[in-house]
């Protein structure tokens, strides 16, 4: 059994495509067997909804009269600094950006109630955003100060760009120290008080296509409630990691860089997020369709939580000190049972990634495909695979002398 993306699109156009989400497909393959299921299913939809810290939005605000060159100046959106290192009226805001007067962790743990992720959420929700900018003035761009309300509907372009998300698997975070620690993996209670994980597991896009055989540059995706595209491999993309017999990476591996039209998106799927004692971020909804081109591809999508292993990492010492040791491996099925065993101790688990929302995304994407409004794309280039020779390098510091 082999089919092409064009054949699948033909079925989508005629409303006949058979689509299953990445949870349903597990049972279908188990019940019908691989070859029968592969003959029947055209597309498997995946989803994930979790904090994705490398998210950003960029936009063009239009030229003021007289003109101002924000490039090289300073700009604030609801007091959150935006990046101005571009041409006259292009701005970029990162999800982690914080107001200059935010106390951060000066009183630990800092609350981080409002940052770049919240600005992006409010912008998408159609709320007015306050821009305050200063510039140095030139002959062609004389203005030095600009204060105005901005609204997404008036922007020329508004684009979500995320240089790394959809991590293919991730650490399970624990704390073996005697005090509470506050991390990007949430609040970790002392003496193995809890274990936090962050992956949609069996629904997660790259865990359903572990060798990037269908997901590549140019793949059309669900992004933030609208459609977007895979733009590139994400930063820290690291395919050559240890894998299970089924090909599933046993820790953080591949990542995606994605892009999409912010004007189509919905604040339900882009949620400003505060990690106590850590910072602000954006929780992003993303879903990728996987075309069932062969039995092999279907086999990958039938991966279940029991088949996916994640490393348990101590965030009280080894993680911040970049030491490689882990405290063992655990499957997502065990994590989702609510308790795991770490160093002989029963530890309650919690997730930072919303499985119900991930499932909702996979189902929305399924509905889009079934109703003919979402066609699949053929990647224009593959993501670097295991054989690419990519090595995720740590920083080799070189002291700067004299």
């Amino acid at each position, binding site marked *: 059994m082999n089919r092409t993306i064009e054949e699948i699109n033909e079925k989508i156009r005629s409303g006949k495509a058979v689509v299953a989400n990445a949870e349903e497909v597990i049972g279908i393959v188990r019940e019908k067997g691989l070859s029968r299921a592969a003959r029947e299913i055209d597309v498997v939809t995946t989803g994930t909804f979790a904090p994705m810290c490398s998210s950003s939005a960029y936009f063009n605000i239009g030229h003021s009269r007289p003109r101002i060159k924000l490039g090289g100046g300073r700009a604030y959106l609801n007091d959150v600094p935006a990046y101005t290192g571009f041409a006259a009226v292009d701005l970029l805001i990162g999800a982690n950006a914080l107001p200059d007067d935010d106390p951060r962790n000066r009183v630990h743990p800092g609350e981080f109630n409002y940052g770049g992720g919240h600005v992006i959420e409010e912008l998408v929700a159609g709320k007015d955003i306050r821009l305050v900018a200063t510039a140095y003035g030139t002959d062609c761009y004389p203005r030095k100060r600009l204060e105005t309300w901005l609204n997404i509907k008036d922007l020329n372009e508004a684009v979500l760009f995320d240089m790394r998300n959809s991590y293919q698997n991730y650490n399970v975070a624990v704390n073996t120290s005697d005090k509470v620690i506050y991390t990007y993996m949430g609040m970790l209670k002392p003496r193995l008080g809890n274990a936090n994980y962050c992956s949609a597991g069996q629904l997660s896009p790259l865990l359903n296509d572990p060798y990037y055989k269908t997901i590549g540059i140019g793949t059309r995706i669900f992004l933030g409630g609208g459609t977007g595209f895979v733009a590139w491999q994400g930063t820290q993309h690291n395919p050559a990691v240890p894998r299970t017999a089924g090909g599933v990476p046993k820790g953080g591996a591949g990542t995606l860089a994605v892009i999409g039209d912010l004007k189509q998106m919905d604040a339900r799927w882009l949620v400003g997020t505060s990690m106590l004692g850590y910072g602000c971020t954006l929780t992003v909804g993303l879903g990728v369709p996987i075309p069932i081109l062969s039995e092999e591809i279907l086999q990958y999508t039938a991966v279940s939580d029991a088949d996916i292993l994640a490393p348990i990492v101590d965030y009280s010492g080894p993680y911040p000190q970049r030491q490689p040791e882990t405290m063992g491996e655990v499957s997502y099925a065990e994590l989702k049972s609510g308790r795991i065993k770490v160093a002989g101790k029963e530890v309650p688990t*919690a997730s930072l990634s919303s499985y*119900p929302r991930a499932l909702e995304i996979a189902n929305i994407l399924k509905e889009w495909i079934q109703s003919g409004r979402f066609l699949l794309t053929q990647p224009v280039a593959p993501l670097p695979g295991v054989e690419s020779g990519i090595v995720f390098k740590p920083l080799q510091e070189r002291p700067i002398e004299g």
Partner: protein
Amino acid sequence: MTVAKKIVLRFPRRMIDRPIVYLLVKDYGLEFNILKASVTPEAEGLMVMELKGDRKQYDKGIQFLLKTGVQIEALSREVTRNEARCTSCGACVTICPAGAFVLEPQSRKIQFLGEKCIACGLCIKACPPRAMEVHF
């Protein structure tokens, strides 16, 4: 009929040295379990307790407290969840010391059980989308 309710008591400054809770036991035969107690820098006392006893005696005890000038609030009203902001991620589940957040195994949605909440406030800032709200 026996009732058991969790309540928040606020003692004005002039009352923090009076043995009010003792009188609930002595005069009304009520059982109490103190979940949280503190005195603010303004010397106002705050106590969160579970109060249990015969329905009639319980009501009389509450009347007594009100007459003394203590402000009473029902605990279940103290912390609420903004359903529109909750994403059911689950970060709260292991943070809550009272087990007020329960993961439904099938849907994997997070239930908030107001009756289990002790209003400690730990979830307020530990909730990534800030869906938990405290009301005084």
